[in-house]
């Protein structure tokens, strides 16, 4: 039954994605650990961590695509779920430092000693166990998403309004986590991690293992997402993306469908954050910044909204571009990113993966509308536009 669920959504594209991920999971550890350092095929540990980071972003993009691409909910606050997952993992890693901190307090993290706290706040309890932290990585973002979605979807907050209140959500969390009294390290966040599950977090083998775990999580999430989309439930999701009122009038409880996709997506984003934190070695409130959520949206848009593979592709490509630009031409990065936003929305509404279909539609010579998706997009999301697009 479960197997069927997973296999149901798999098509040719999925085969390609999973094959590439499988190759990565084997080749990268091999090239890092067993190929000698002077060989041209050797990958430095820095590159592995960088790739791992990209794949975490890819997982975030996948989660976002599930709600935006298939459900029509443009979340401008998905980085909040990502960061919450990251904080849950960061709290575990903080507790693992134990007495090796600067102040040598076996229970309290350094920043609490510094703030003169006497005992661990209740919400830190349990985070010394990995299993607890791992559950929290799913539960905290999931619960927040569930509560938020429960209210928002039942009140039929849609389109732009929903996008803006998701921004408000992540902004409120940003402000909250900046506060020292919250007990999450304030401005500096959580950092200076020592080890994970008993292994040194700086060691090459640990980093490679984290990378492999990220690949595995991405592959699993991909299968879950495509399973959901391929199922009957997925058809309803797409239907309510394109015409929510009609689906509701046909008797479907659209709120529950949306809530399910939304919560699932938040959990995936949480996992992405949890894998991200040990690989970059820090989590701080800036991850909640509204801008990072919007950046995640552009990854999906570049790759192709509504194609899971496109989300992954977009996240990896844009972030590779970011790494290149911020290193080589830091002045130009924001121009490039800004230009990308504009160019993709104007010329590639279906993203890179949709480019082929778009070209094919144009070739026969008929002057098609420059924006083939305008109709559906309008119905899905354009409820505030008045009669502008009509």
């Amino acid at each position, binding site marked *: 039954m479960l197997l069927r669920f997973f296999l149901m959504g798999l098509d040719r594209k999925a085969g390609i994605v999973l094959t590439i991920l499988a190759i990565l999971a084997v080749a990268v550890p091999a090239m890092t650990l067993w190929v000698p350092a002077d060989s041209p095929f050797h990958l430095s540990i820095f590159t592995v961590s960088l790739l791992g980071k990209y794949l975490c972003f890819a997982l975030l993009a996948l989660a976002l695509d599930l709600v935006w691409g298939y459900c029509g909910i443009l979340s401008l606050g998905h980085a909040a779920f990502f960061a919450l997952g990251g904080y849950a993992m960061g709290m575990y890693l903080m507790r693992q430092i134990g007495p090796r901190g600067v102040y040598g307090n076996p229970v309290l993290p350094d920043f609490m000693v510094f703030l003169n706290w006497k005992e661990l706040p209740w919400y830190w309890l349990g985070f010394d166990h990995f299993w607890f932290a791992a559950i929290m990585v799913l539960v905290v973002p999931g619960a927040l998403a569930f509560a938020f979605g429960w209210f928002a979807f039942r009140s039929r*907050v849609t389109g732009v309004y929903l996008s803006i209140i998701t921004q408000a959500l992540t902004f409120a969390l940003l402000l909250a986590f900046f506060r020292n009294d919250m007990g999450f390290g304030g401005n500096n966040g959580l950092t200076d991690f020592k080890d994970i599950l008993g292994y040194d977090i700086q060691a090459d083998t640990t980093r490679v293992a984290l990378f492999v775990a990220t690949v595995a999580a991405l592959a699993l999430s991909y299968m879950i997402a495509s399973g959901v989309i391929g199922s009957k439930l997925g058809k309803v999701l797409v239907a309510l993306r394109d015409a929510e009122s009609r689906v509701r009038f046909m008797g479907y409880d659209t709120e529950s469908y949306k809530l399910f996709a939304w919560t699932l997506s938040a959990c995936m984003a949480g996992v992405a954050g949890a894998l991200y934190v040990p690989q970059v070695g820090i989590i701080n409130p800036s991850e909640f910044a509204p801008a990072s959520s919007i950046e995640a949206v552009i990854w999906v848009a570049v790759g192709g909204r509504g194609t899971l593979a496109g989300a992954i592709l977009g996240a990896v490509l844009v972030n590779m571009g970011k790494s290149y630009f911020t290193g080589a031409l830091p002045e130009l990065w*924001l121009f490039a990113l800004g230009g990308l936003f504009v160019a993709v929305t104007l010329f590639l509404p279906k993203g890179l993966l949709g480019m082929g279909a778009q070209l094919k539609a144009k070739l026969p010579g008929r002057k098609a509308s420059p924006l083939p998706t305008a109709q559906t997009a309008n119905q899905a999301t354009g409820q505030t536009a008045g009669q502008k697009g009509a």
Partner: protein
Amino acid sequence: MRRALRWLMAVCVVVATSTAAYAADPRATDLRPLVQALGSGGYSGTEKALTQLSEAGDPAAVPVIEALQAGDLYVRKADGTVVVARKAGDAFTLTDPLTRAALGDAPAAAVEKIRINNSLRRAISASLGALTLMSPDAGVRRSAADAVFKSRDASALETLGAAIAKEQDKGVRAAMEQARAAILLTGEAASKMTDAEIQSATDTLTARGDRDALVLLNMVAGSGASDITKKSAAAAVSTLEQKLAFWAALQNLWYGLSLGSVLLLAAIGLAVTFGVMGVINMAHGEMVMIGAYTTFLVQEFFRAHAPGLFDLSILVALPAAFLVSGGVGIVIERSVIRWLYGRPLETLLATWGLSLALQQAVRSIFGPTNREVGAPSWMSGAFELGGLTITYGRLWIVIFAFTVFAALLVALKRTWFGLSIRAVTQNRPMANAMGIRTARVDALTFGLGSGIAGLAGVALSQIDNVSPNLGQGYILDSFMVVVFGGVGNLWGTLVGALTLGTMNKFLEPYAGAVLGKILVLIFIILFIQRRPRGLFALKGRAVEA
């Protein structure tokens, strides 16, 4: 005591009849022995002479005591005369402390400094406070009275009484009476006072009505004073607390109004682009930023070419910022946004991209650091209104925000341009059929919204840092205001801005600035659940298009 009284009477007569400068006054000779006494008998001798000088109540003694305070008072060893000596090269230039007549130079070895210690320093400032009560300058008398109010030095009591009797200026006399009441209530004199006197003293303090008075009355109420005093003080405390709470609430209301008008300014342009046109313009904040940088450029021009007219620079910056931001807005509309009508979420992404590019462009041109934008003289300073302190800068911004709002309202409701905007918004094909050039109206509407953002930038440059990130801080707030107020309704924007601003400022004292802001955000999120279309929702078919 008698002697002191005689001095006081003499002083009163003199103050009443003449306010001539102290120098060369016949009374100077009478002070001479006291001044002379400052130089003998060590610390205690100096202190004794100082007390007598201060009891003499003659303002002519002020420069002498000031010289003592500054350490400029010396004794000439040759004849024991007290002189003011100022170092000039190796030697000292001597002058007479009372007449200021030059007494020639003396080598350093020929004079000896009159040294002072901490107890003397206290006595000096107290006696200066008391003596300046007699100053011919009302401002000096007033600050002297305030100083006495703060020090509550009982030795100033008599001078104070004399000064009150002679005081003509109402405000200064009130300040003096408050100072006297403060001394009476806290000093030993309190036990000898009648009930009526105590009552009148507490009344005087209550009339003062500020936090200092409250602290003082609280002190009296909790001190070892007699029961009557305590009771009267406690009653006064509760009256005063109510009064202060009232003014604090009013002050919060003003802060809220001030923040609300800043929000209104930032959001009102968005109310046009988002509210009227339905375009989610994430680059709105950058239009504000461009307006602020235009102000900077205009001010630079004025600084370089017409520094004398600097006060007018803001007035020139207003139309300039409107045109620059509006122009940028029209270019954006023509090049990007017109392809995206009816796809609000795509518009959101594209304009976000534009905002990043604009920020980086400004950063490349002007550098990442804050730019200095000055305030014209008519915008600096503050005035008091009852218990309120109102700065002119904020006052102008409030006035400006409401002016812009009113002007926009008139433009939309009473002009041909506004009519076309509304026509195109409500029914594009029909407006087109009636001969309205819809494409041009779109561009101009977007330009109008952006231009208003530019105006906001001029105002915000006065209270915020002019940096490439200026706009980012306002974009989310602006959206919150528009969404909270209800899209497509200017009055909703007004009410939304003022409500959120006031709420923020009333929460701040209890929750702190950051938590207050978080609470407001949560409030908005919950509010949108209750009323998904904002406070003043548009009704009817247009909504569900």
